[in-house]
């Protein structure tokens, strides 16, 4: 309990001091938020008018009956057709479930939960001790406290940070209520569920590290395949039910909304909470949230009870982080690894091989060296001549999963539907993956300030390198998307949209890290980036949805790309001046 008090004391002082130091930034954030609100209201009003004009009227009776039913026993009201197969099984064609909206919500929430928990498992198995900072090593590790108590101190800090960082999701409430048509109560529950999911993900990460600290083989497996361990059972359940003759929607329903599915800890409970909220069953919804929180508490208690000796791992990890931070603040460490030693790590041999591959800077002079460095490091670090990076792999397999499920499991024939869902998923993934300053490595070195080139050229070539890097990563996934939607022109336009969005996200991360003081707590930096991104993101999202749903999507998509590029240039505009001013 004393350590809980210390953790809360530390979090409170860190938070308050962060606000005090960055009050100008906080004031700017409030101003940007107000601007976003105005833009959102204007855009929302325009969209509402557009949607109202296009919508067919829905009978009041049908609106009142918008409650969740079990699809396995549902008797459809529309046209149905029974078909007898060779095996004597029956399934229903031309069936439009009455509550398809609820089913979509269930799938999205469930998959999101599986994704975050899976990533938590992978993170915990890979570097669970990396939650500790060097000051924790110096002050807390020698202090007369149990290692579990020290772990609890950091866990509470991590939980607080994760929950605060998840707060930006509340900016999506107008979208959930206005555009998705959810009741306000459901939108509030979803925001709370998202924040709780951040908490659960962190706890799972720490539990994974502590539970398997003495099992290196299991840790290695989970660090690579933790996500698949979570996601594959859900997909297998769908496939199994389908093979048993349940039909598409029944199979999906069984995997994500059945009693068994919502009984799965955390994923099922959070999904149930959201669905109950949509259905108006607020007591049940809140109860499921409470169950999730209790479950998280139990997980925390169990973690705390496991004997652990993580000090050595934490020391190594914190030293590495401290080295990177010192290199970012002071003397150039040189090379691409900031002086970080990979000695003793499982992949040390891999790093040694990569280090020994010669990098030749021919053709890159002046500011172009920053572009060349990114390209040559890509070639050095990744297979297939640098074409297939870890990021590339992530987007590729995500797209394979999405297109595969939609085309071959859900039997979606409409390329536009596939394009919308796959694009939204890709853009969301890009959004969450892009909060780090893309030029962190370059700006941590002193020589960027010493090279006799214009600041705009230095930063411009650096960002161009990052953009090309991202563009290469998106190629395989875009090819898969193209196969799925069957429209080459649309595929090219979507690819350009992804690249322009990648550029814009990178620029916002650059401008926040370069222009604003680097002492901002990470969650405030992320919230500020989210706010800045929201300004052009809202109109782009609307134009994208409207454009792609219409027959002529070329002009709207080109407008979206143009907005992204213009916003990127605007975000870039103050950066050279701040580079010229020098380090803070």
């Amino acid at each position: 309990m004393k350590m809980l008090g210390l953790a809360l004391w530390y979090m409170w002082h860190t938070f308050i001091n962060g606000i005090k130091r960055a009050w100008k930034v906080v004031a700017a954030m409030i101003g940007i938020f107000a601007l976003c609100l105005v833009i959102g209201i204007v855009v929302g009003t325009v969209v509402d008018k557009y949607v109202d004009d296009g919508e067919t009227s829905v009978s009041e009776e049908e609106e009142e009956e918008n409650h969740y039913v079990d699809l396995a026993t549902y008797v459809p009201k529309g046209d149905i057709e029974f078909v007898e197969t060779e095996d004597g099984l029956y399934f229903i064609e031309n069936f439009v479930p009455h509550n398809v909206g609820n089913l979509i919500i269930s799938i999205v929430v469930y998959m999101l939960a599986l994704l975050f928990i899976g990533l938590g498992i992978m993170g915990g198995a890979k570097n669970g001790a990396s939650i500790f900072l060097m000051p924790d090593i110096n002050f807390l590790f020698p202090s007369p406290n149990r290692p579990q108590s020290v772990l609890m101190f950091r866990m509470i800090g991590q939980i607080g940070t994760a929950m605060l960082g998840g707060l930006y999701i509340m900016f999506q409430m107008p979208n959930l209520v206005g555009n998705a048509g959810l009741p306000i109560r459901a939108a509030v529950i979803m925001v709370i569920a998202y924040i709780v999911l951040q908490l659960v993900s962190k706890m799972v990460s720490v539990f994974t590290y502590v539970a398997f600290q003495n099992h290196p083989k299991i840790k290695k497996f989970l660090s690579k395949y933790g996500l698949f361990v979570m996601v594959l059972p859900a997909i297998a359940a769908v496939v199994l039910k389908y093979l048993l003759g349940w039909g598409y929607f029944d199979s999906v329903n069984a995997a994500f909304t059945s009693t068994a599915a919502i009984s799965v800890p955390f994923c099922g409970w959070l999904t149930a909470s959201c669905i109950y909220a949509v259905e108006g069953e607020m007591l049940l919804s809140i109860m499921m949230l409470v169950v999730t929180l209790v479950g998280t508490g139990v997980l925390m208690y169990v973690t705390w009870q496991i004997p652990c000796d993580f000090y050595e791992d934490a020391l190594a990890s914190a030293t590495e982080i401290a080295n990177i931070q010192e290199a970012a603040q002071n003397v150039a460490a040189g090379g691409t690894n900031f002086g970080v030693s990979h000695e003793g790590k499982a992949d040390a041999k891999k790093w040694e091989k990569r280090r020994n591959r010669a990098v030749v800077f021919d053709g890159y002079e002046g500011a172009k060296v920053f572009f060349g460095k990114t390209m040559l490091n890509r070639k050095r670090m990744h297979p297939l001549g640098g074409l297939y990076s870890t990021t590339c792999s992530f987007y590729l397999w995500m797209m394979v999963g999405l297109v595969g499920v939609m085309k071959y499991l859900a039997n979606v024939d409409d390329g536009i539907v596939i394009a919308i869902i796959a694009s939204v998923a890709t853009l969301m993934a890009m959004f969450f993956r892009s909060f780090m300053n893309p030029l962190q490595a370059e700006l941590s070195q002193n020589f960027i300030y010493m090279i006799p080139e214009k600041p705009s050229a230095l930063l411009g070539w650096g960002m161009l390198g990052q953009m090309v890097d991202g563009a290469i990563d998106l190629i395989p996934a875009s090819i898969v998307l193209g196969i799925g939607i069957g429209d080459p022109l649309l595929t090219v336009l979507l690819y350009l949209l992804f690249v322009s969005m990648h550029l814009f996200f990178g620029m916002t991360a650059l401008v926040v890290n370069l222009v604003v003081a680097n002492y901002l707590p990470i969650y405030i930096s992320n919230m500020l980036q989210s706010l800045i991104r929201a300004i052009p993101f809202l109109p782009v999202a609307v134009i994208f949805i409207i454009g792609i749903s219409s027959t002529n999507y070329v002009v709207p998509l080109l407008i979206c790309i143009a907005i992204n590029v213009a916003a990127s240039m605007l975000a870039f505009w103050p950066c050279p001046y701040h580079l010229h001013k020098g380090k803070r």
Partner: protein
Amino acid sequence: MLEVNHVTKKYKKEKACDDVTFFLPEGGIHVLLGPNGAGKSTIMKSIIGFLKYSGEIKINGYNNKSLEAKKIIGYMPEIPSLYANLTVDEHMEFVAKAYRLKDYTDYKNELLERFELADKKKKFGDELSKGMQQKLSLCCALLPKPALLLMDEPMIGLDPHAIKELKKMMHEMKENGQSLFISTHIIDSMDQLWDHAIIMQKGQVKGNVTHEQLQEMNKTLEEVFFEITEGLSGEDMSESAPEEENKEK
């Protein structure tokens, strides 16, 4: 006070410490010397409890990783590392809370005054220069009044006034019966201060001498250090006189 028994620490196949054994009696200033890569930091971190090792380390009879031992021991790292968003005063408060100290305010203010940090109480950790960070790190290590204080290169980065205050503090701690175990490269900095020296090389203890022994031999610590580490002397100085006396007790 401190017993290190057959401690071996390996990183992969390389031994950073190889069967290290020594004893530190209660009280006095004990110095750990050695060239780069001798294993000084490794043994210090093993004593604090940061590392896994084979062998045994006891502090006043308690296992070094036990809570009883941690109540006695304090640590000042070589490279200070502070919380960016806590002020100087808050760092001291943080340590006081972590160690569950009572009635520490006067001593806290005295330490800040002695090391010229009193007027910087409201400065954040990342706003301090390296020297000030080192001073704050020292104040945090001294605040719990540990019976055994481990210091890794304590004088690096300190200005002359701070070095003078630190040496004065070391004398006071010695007078109070507290023990200090200091790892350093700079032999001159510990001249006139030390009571007992342990010299390490390539992960092993090569020398273990007291001040009195050196005076009898009519040698300086520096001379002995170079004799041992450069192999000029054939004499085996790895046995410790205080160690034997302590065992008999």
